[in-house]
């Protein structure tokens, strides 16, 4: 068996698998599948669809965050700002400008773009941990703006979606199915954008910048320019996810711009495995399901009957998630995807050793496009 040809076969296989998964997801509302303990209702009912939609929102948001942390090595604590810009942007456009849905979406995305450009340029004056602190400050300013200007944003109460401009098929509980499909579409779009960025010259440059900034400069390239472009793309994608969230929830609360949300997304990406697109998706789904199930658990009789030393921590889902996150960082450095990936590589290497491969140099060169071993890949 030839390694290069095997690689060539692997790629369409992954693509076919991905398409099949998307088709399956698209068919779920038409099927009657029950997964007790995971989904609250069978898949054709609104309860399960709403939960799955939320999971896809988090998966998509995690994908956009992975562009920052995974592809470009930027640790941002302010990503929620752009998500919130999408959600609030759409809400405000529909409420105050009275435009129909799609122009409203456009306005929300442009708003996200402008905010990302302005804050990105400033934040990129520093890098590393100072960058994280500065992005956090910007998100905090956004959060304060949202909470203060209650006339426009609804303040602490949040902003509910003005459904006048929204087509009927996207409104109300009965149409959860359509919203589910819309969310799936957004997830697919964000995935394709992430894939596109990773495969482009820009994406390669971003990865190189992550690895060795000085060398990028010595080659005549500007690391910050590459970073800024990726940053803005990720931000606009986050705005798109925010738009979907606004539609799905028929409203938004200030938490959508808070540091809490950014940290939630960070938790998802680290849990899933930094640098892996599928890791971000798996992380988003696991997080949402876990969060939901833990909330159910927290209110269950079993927990109520425990002594307070156990009851109090166990009745706080965020406490359990925070603890889980610490454990992952300390004991599972690659996250879920990173661990699976290195196991898989070791297994493959073992098999390749068994039947020695020897393609021509050029064939192997072409195979070299696959990302090299990331044994020591740690955020």
């Amino acid at each position, binding site marked *: 068996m030839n390694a290069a040809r095997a690689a060539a076969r692997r790629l369409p296989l992954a693509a076919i698998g991905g398409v099949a998964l998307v088709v399956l997801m698209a068919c779920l509302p038409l099927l009657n599948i029950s997964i007790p303990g995971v989904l609250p209702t069978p898949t054709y009912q609104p309860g399960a669809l709403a939960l799955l939609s939320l999971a896809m929102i988090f998966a998509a948001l995690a994908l956009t965050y992975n562009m920052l942390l995974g592809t470009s090595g930027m640790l941002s604590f302010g990503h929620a700002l752009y998500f919130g810009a999408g959600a609030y942007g759409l809400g405000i456009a529909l409420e105050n400008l009275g435009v129909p849905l799609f122009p409203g979406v456009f306005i929300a995305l442009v708003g996200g773009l402008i905010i990302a450009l302005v804050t990105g340029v400033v934040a990129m004056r520093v890098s590393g941990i100072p960058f994280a602190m500065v992005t956090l400050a910007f998100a905090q300013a956004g959060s304060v703006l949202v909470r203060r200007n209650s006339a426009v944003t609804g303040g602490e109460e949040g902003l509910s979606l003005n459904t006048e401009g929204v087509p009927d098929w996207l409104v109300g509980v009965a149409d959860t199915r359509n919203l589910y499909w819309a969310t799936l579409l957004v997830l697919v779009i964000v995935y394709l954008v992430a894939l*596109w*960025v990773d*495969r*482009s*010259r*820009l994406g*390669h*440059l971003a*990865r*190189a910048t992550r*690895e*060795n900034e*000085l*060398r*990028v*400069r*010595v*080659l*005549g*390239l*500007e690391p910050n*320019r*590459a970073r800024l*472009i990726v940053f803005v793309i990720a931000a606009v994608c986050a705005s798109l996810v925010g738009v979907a969230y606004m539609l799905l929830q028929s409203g938004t609360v200030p938490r959508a711009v808070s540091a809490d949300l950014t940290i939630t997304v960070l938790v998802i990406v680290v849990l899933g495995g930094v640098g892996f697109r599928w890791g971000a998706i798996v992380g988003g789904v696991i997080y949402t399901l876990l969060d939901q199930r833990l909330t159910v658990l927290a209110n269950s009789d079993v927990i109520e009957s425990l002594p307070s030393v156990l009851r109090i921590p166990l009745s706080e889902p965020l406490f359990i998630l925070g603890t889980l996150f610490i454990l992952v960082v300390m004991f599972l450095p690659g996250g879920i995807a990173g661990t699976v990936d290195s196991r898989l590589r070791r297994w493959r290497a073992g098999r390749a050793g068994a039947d020695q491969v020897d393609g021509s*140099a*050029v064939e*192997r*060169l*072409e*195979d*070299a*496009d*696959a*990302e*090299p*071993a*990331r044994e*020591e*890949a740690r955020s």
Partner: protein
Amino acid sequence: MTAAVPPALRVEGLGLQIGGATILQDVDLDVPAGSLVGVIGPNGAGKTTLFNTISGVVRPTAGRILMDGRDITGTSIPARARAGLGRTFQTSSNFPRLSVLENVRMAAQATTGGSYSLLRFPGRGDDATRAAIESLEAVGLADKAHLAAGDISHGDKRKLEIATLLATDASLILLDEPMAGVGSGDVAGLVERIRDLHRTKGCTVLMVEHHLEVLMGLVDRVAVMVSGSIIAFDTPETIMADPRVQAAYLGSAA
């Protein structure tokens, strides 16, 4: 005189002081276009710092640097690179988690343009990929193209540095101890690669090297640095016979 063709690199009165310590002092150097020049001197003489000031990593506190007659003293590292300056580092520094091919392609991509493009995809038919493969074949690294650059041997990392330079269109190249840490068996091969690099690209090369014997057969001229200054700049034969060089190298204590 040679006023018609400006030197590829001209360093005038270069000085660097850090916290009261003098690292470089009044360094003057004219490197004619197309020449291959060696820089020798004991450890701590300021050779690497000289390279760092030329490539823009460190700002000098006095003096000017001119490339092809243009003053580049105040420009950024990337701007100097785009003007045709390429360099390697003393300790190999690559993109450790990218493949060998991707490492070289990053250099080729910087030259062919579109590095920030979302519309160009590095792949088989891509011009940057092809240039990278050619460069890797030229240094004999083609069969390791798919390995992560952080995992290859030290000698291979040195070859990778040369391949990276081959893939650019640099006209002035600074090599900082290209032989450091390379086993004696590989030195001859590496010398050949440097000669190739110089010949095929027709560029100007300035290299720091301790291995005087290596320089003898390779370079046109040798600059000797001691304590932050250049004390001699001449043909290898003359330099070898210079007692000041002997003293500088073997130490003048007692």
